[in-house]
């Protein structure tokens, strides 16, 4: 029991200055990848501020530098050490898959890296391997640097692109929010105006309301247009500045209908009044379809509410009338589907 407590305490205590985490909760432990002996921050400051100095652990004596000290991430120092070694090895052997013609060669390369990391960390001939690595670095300095540059450029590009996207989104949100606020203000103002007019004007109330609604509608469509323009403008900007970001074109052009669309109708549709008002007025165009029954249906409010429209109805009837005309059965049969 006491042992456990002791171990616990020693874990929270700097072995150099014996400061306890219990008494100074702000203390941090640092390690140096030369020997992985931990000590507290203030000790590092005290001992290594004046330049390289030997490790204060009894029997260690490795020369350490202050700038190499770092915070310990993993509890297990073995793991911490392996990660440091891996980082070092990867900074030297930094080829990517695209540098190889064959995937098998790339796999071999990865295997070699793993072996190297294991060799250095397990320690049998670690020293030799390290020297070898340093030699390799010396000899291939230029290529390594080149590859590093390329990598950093790429991640830079990506970061920049994401940054720009985020900024664009923010900008759009801001504009939209502003517009929403303005809209609110506008409707409020309009309501007030309407009330005033209703109180003072000689026109009847329906007309006034109609007027007001028209105004609002106009404004809304204008708004929409502006918003759309803004958006396309921004997207254009983004596209031109990052034209390299999307070079990949689809191999086959995208066809939304895959040919299943009647683009060349065999008939020409006469003008059909789209809105109810003209229908209600009853002055039927001599150049349009006149069917008393249909017009009756088109005025039915229940039909209208369910989405029934004269235009679509007539179009369907015409489609069905002409369906199959110009289709030669023998020819169709000879073309297999799928």
């Amino acid at each position: 029991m006491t042992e456990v407590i002791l171990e616990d305490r020693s874990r929270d205590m700097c072995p150099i200055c014996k400061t306890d985490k219990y008494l100074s909760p702000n203390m941090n432990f640092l390690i140096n990848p030369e020997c992985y002996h931990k000590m507290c921050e203030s000790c590092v400051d005290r001992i290594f501020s004046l330049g390289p100095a030997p490790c204060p652990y009894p029997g260690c004596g490795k020369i350490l530098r202050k700038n190499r000290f770092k915070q310990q991430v993993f509890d297990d120092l073995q793991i911490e050490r392996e990660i440091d070694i891996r980082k070092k090895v990867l900074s030297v052997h930094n080829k990517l898959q695209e540098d190889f013609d064959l995937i098998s060669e790339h796999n071999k390369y990865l295997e070699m890296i793993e072996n190297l990391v294991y060799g250095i960390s397990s320690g049998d001939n670690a020293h030799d391997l390290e020297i070898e690595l340093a030699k390799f670095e010396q000899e291939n300095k230029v290529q390594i640097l080149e590859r590093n540059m390329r990598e950093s450029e790429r991640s830079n590009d990506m970061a920049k692109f994401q940054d720009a996207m985020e900024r664009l989104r923010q900008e759009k949100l801001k504009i939209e929010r502003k517009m929403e606020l303005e809209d609110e203000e506008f409707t409020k103002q309009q309501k007030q105006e309407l009330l005033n007019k209703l109180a003072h004007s000689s026109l009847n109330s329906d007309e006034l309301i109609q007027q007001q609604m028209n105004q609002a509608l106009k404004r809304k469509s204008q708004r929409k247009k502006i918003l759309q323009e803004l958006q396309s403008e921004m997207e254009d900007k983004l596209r031109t500045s990052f034209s390299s970001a999307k070079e990949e074109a689809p191999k086959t052009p995208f066809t939304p209908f895959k040919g299943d669309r009647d683009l060349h109708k065999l008939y020409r549709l006469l003008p059909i009044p789209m809105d109810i008002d003209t229908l209600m007025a009853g002055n039927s165009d001599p150049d349009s379809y006149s069917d008393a029954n249909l017009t009756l249906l088109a005025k039915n409010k229940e039909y209208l509410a369910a989405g029934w429209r004269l235009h679509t109805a007539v179009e369907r009837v015409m489609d069905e009338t002409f369906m199959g005309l110009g289709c030669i059965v023998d020819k169709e049969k000879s073309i297999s589907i799928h």
Partner: protein
Amino acid sequence: MTEAETDTENVPQSKYTKDKKVGEGTYAVVYLGVQKHTKRKIAIKEIKTGLFKDGLDMSALREVKYLQELRHPNVIELVDVFGTSNNLNLVLEFLPCDLEVLIKSKDIMFLAADIKSWLLMTFRGLHHCHRMSILHRDLKPNNLLLAPDGQLKIADFGLARGLGNLNEDLSSNVVTRWYRAPELLFGAKHYTAAIDIWSVGIIFAELMLRIPYLPGKDDVDQLDVTFKALGTPTEQIWPNVSNLPLYNSLRVYPPPSRQELRNRFIAATDKALDLMISMTQLDPSRRCNTSQALLHEYFTELPSPTDPKNLPKNKPNEPTVESNGNTTKRRKVE
């Protein structure tokens, strides 16, 4: 050639084998089988007769009637129909999976491109139906089947209906509740193809959320849930709505702002949201149609839709009929 052989060739049921029963509903039993001369796998739907005093079930007739007219890569294929002594058999293309299964299996990840691909195929199939003036009237993930090659196929035309006379009454009691358009909830009898668009819109939302978008507990609750999500319709946004039979005073919810929708569909792009909004317009005359949807920029913006071959698939847990003993070893992919 012996007499017996020629004899079997003329009998339609001998062209197919019925191997295994895979499902049973109120009106039909479904068997798996093989078309003998092509070795193609098929499903045979055997319609139960004698349950109804009028003879055959309506939905079977509908299915035969409309599937015969439709032939499209994204609509289930009716291979053959034959009658045996006392029942009717529909021979359909065999489709092992459906979209509902995929939505529910939590270990499958959907990419934005996958959702786009499924939606695109749904629209292509639906466009074909609407072009032939056939309304499906029961679109839901469960009825969107998936072929082994990834193609999505619209199935179950048991509720489908051709648009007949212009003034004909249509039943408003169609479509599974969660996917039912507001005009149907209001009891409209002269609805249009827009009801199918609504269903697809809700399916689109479900694909993104991975849970049902508007799960009403009953028909009244469905109205409440729908309007809570999309706002209560008023005469301004939906002219003449108050003339619909079941329209009455409702709880008024404000329409959702774009920001609210954006928060709900966090992964959706602006274009995706635009398309969904135009599919779930309360006023059916404002809803987009299949052509407009297919031409929507959502389908042309990046990412481009996944090739059907590469879409996520359900990994069958139990061995299906095809794997005759040899289990496929999973290989580690580098």
